[in-house]
């Protein structure tokens, strides 16, 4: 928790179904393994993420540059692949560190 609020992480993918759900499962698993609570993750598609308030964004390398223009997010990471759980965990750690979350 930072400033007493839950952190909101957007997972930005092309569509809101399918591959994004798989990525969310793996990101949530990483957060569980790191013992992090009070961070919520939500899937958002590339068409609508801009209007969403959030603290950080996780996306795939395909959208890495696009998301950096987000008006609210303070930290961004891009994962190489949906099933590369080692890479996902490292990127989640990087994001949490940038947001000042302990784990």
């Amino acid at each position, binding site marked *: 928790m930072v400033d007493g609020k839950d952190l909101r992480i957007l997972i930005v*993918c*092309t*569509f*809101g*179904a*399918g*591959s994004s*759900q*798989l990525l969310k*499962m*793996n990101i949530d698993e990483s957060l569980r393994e790191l013992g992090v609570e009070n961070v919520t993750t939500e899937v958002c598609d*590339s068409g609508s993420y801009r209007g969403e308030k959030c603290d950080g964004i996780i996306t*795939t*390398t*395909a959208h890495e540059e696009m998301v950096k223009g987000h008006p609210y997010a303070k930290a961004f990471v891009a994962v*190489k*692949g*949906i*099933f*590369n*759980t080692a890479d996902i965990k490292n990127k989640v750690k990087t994001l949490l560190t940038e947001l000042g979350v302990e784990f």
Partner: protein
Amino acid sequence: MELNLKKVTVRERTNKMYLEKFLTAERIQLKCKASDWRDAIRIASVPLLQANDIKPEYVKAMQDAVEEHGPYMCLAEGFALSHAEPSSLVHKECISLITLDPPIEFGNKDFDPIDVLIAFGTPDAKAHMNFLRELCELLNKPDSFIKIREAKTKNEILSLFSTHDHSKKEVLIG
């Protein structure tokens, strides 16, 4: 009586019940020859059309999605997950798998060429795709892709996620 501990298997995290219900032998095709990525999606859709899981327009929707969004569905080296937005073009949640020989370019420089393609559909974004978690756990394992792409029989793929012992059944050649 001696306990043979080597025969004790550790139960995996999920019950592995849903994927085998949806990804049946009929929905697996091996070593398919496709002329290009559109053809690959078409081939993967054949069992779903035969089972009336999807409308024919859903095949075009999956191909259009790639045109519009680029090869976003390439998710790992050699692997693509093809789908379109949830809609009434899908009658019920469904999934199929093909391996491609030779591998096909989808236009994703990180993950091309593709030799394992899974196509799936869901009528509603909020519908709980029961097989998704099992699929995720299966594909998280580093050797799953190797086993899938090298499979010469459907049994080899089915045994990756089935609760039944396929080794004693008749060999189903894909």
